């Protein structure tokens, strides 16, 4: 049991770490606000789910696992909402979503 648990949790943790890294690279490399947010959301969703899932497997059936599940639940509710709020206010501020547009004008003053 312990061995299988360790392997599963390490796979989940490594996968989560990979997606966090991908999200980080994406935030740095993507040209404008909306595509950057798209990259950051990988960290928020897949990265967080996999990392927390990996820790939950490590914790086993315990109070810690329930707390982690609660954190996961709240993350899954709040991070899409904050992404939505950010994108919405960016749209209200007049930044046009256009994938082929390239960099935001403010990036290169």
């Amino acid at each position, binding site marked *: 049991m312990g061995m299988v648990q360790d392997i599963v949790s390490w796979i989940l943790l490594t996968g989560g770490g990979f997606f966090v890294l991908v999200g980080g690279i994406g935030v740095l490399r993507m040209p404008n606000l909306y595509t950057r947010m798209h990259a950051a959301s990988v960290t928020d969703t897949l990265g967080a789910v996999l990392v927390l899932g990996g820790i939950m497997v490590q914790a086993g059936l315990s109070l810690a696992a329930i707390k982690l599940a609660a954190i996961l639940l*709240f993350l899954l*509710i709040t991070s899409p*909402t904050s992404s*939505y709020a950010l994108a919405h206010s960016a749209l209200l501020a007049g930044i046009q979503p256009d994938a082929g547009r390239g960099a935001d004008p403010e990036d290169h003053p």
Partner: protein
Amino acid sequence: MTVLFGIFLLTLVVITALGIVHTKNLFVAVMLLGIFSLLIAANFFLLDAADVALTEAAVGAGISTVLFLGALALTSERERAATPHRWLSLAVVVSATLVVLYATFDKPTFGDPNAPVHQHVGPWYLEKTPEYVDIPNVVTAVLGTFRGYDTLGEVFVVFTAGIGVLFLLSGGGPASPTERRARPAESAIGLRDDLIPRVVARLLVPFILLFGLYVQFHGEYGPGGGFQAGALIAAAFILYALVEGEGRTLEALPRKALMALTVAGALLYGGVGLAGIVLGSEFLDYSVLASNPVKGQQIGIILIELGVGMTVTGVLLSIFHAFAAREQT
């Protein structure tokens, strides 16, 4: 491993600090300050200081960021051009850094059990807490009873700071919530027409309040206490104010109630201290509050933590409302 993580986090802290100094955009600086606090909180947690980490995360990364943003709304987003004394500042900073670095040579190594801080009163607290107070979280025992004077002082500092900010920001704003609601500008405040954040925030506010109360009353058993709980409860109300508009929040918890909460918290703490004198012992000695001295200590800690929580909630929300009122005038 801990050392490795610590060095990693501290490196990030230094990078963030340099970023804060470097940026000319104050909005970016505020966001970086939030990240700075979160990194410091992670660092505290790494050093097993869960209580301090919780405080830093709730106050430093949470409430301070909101208050900074409130202050930014009153002023410009851009930093003013630097004053011409840059070389002087650089010289002062460099010499101060060298002095601090020189001082660190005398410090004990990390985790040294023979360090003075671990030899002074620490062992006594650890040894006597089960006997005198009998609660699992020694940090709460130290803050609440052994060093009750310090915590009383902190509460009065928070109280005085709140009064000071209110004095600076008051004036100009309409007084009653009904008056504010009548203003047409009110509908523009908050995200009232924005369905998704509104629904989610309304969903989250009860849970945040519940967690705040848990942190408040679980401080004897785990990390927590009045300061953290006050910040969390204030955060719940601020979230409500952001999505439902400030008027609705002031209806739920009017300014007068906030002021009463602030004053009552400080008075409760001081009153528990005076009760010690009245019942024939010393100021802030809770042992006499019940027939069993250990029980008395526990009751005293719960009461003073409640006072701390009330004052912190009241002060933080009053300051938030004071900023919000200025934005509209």
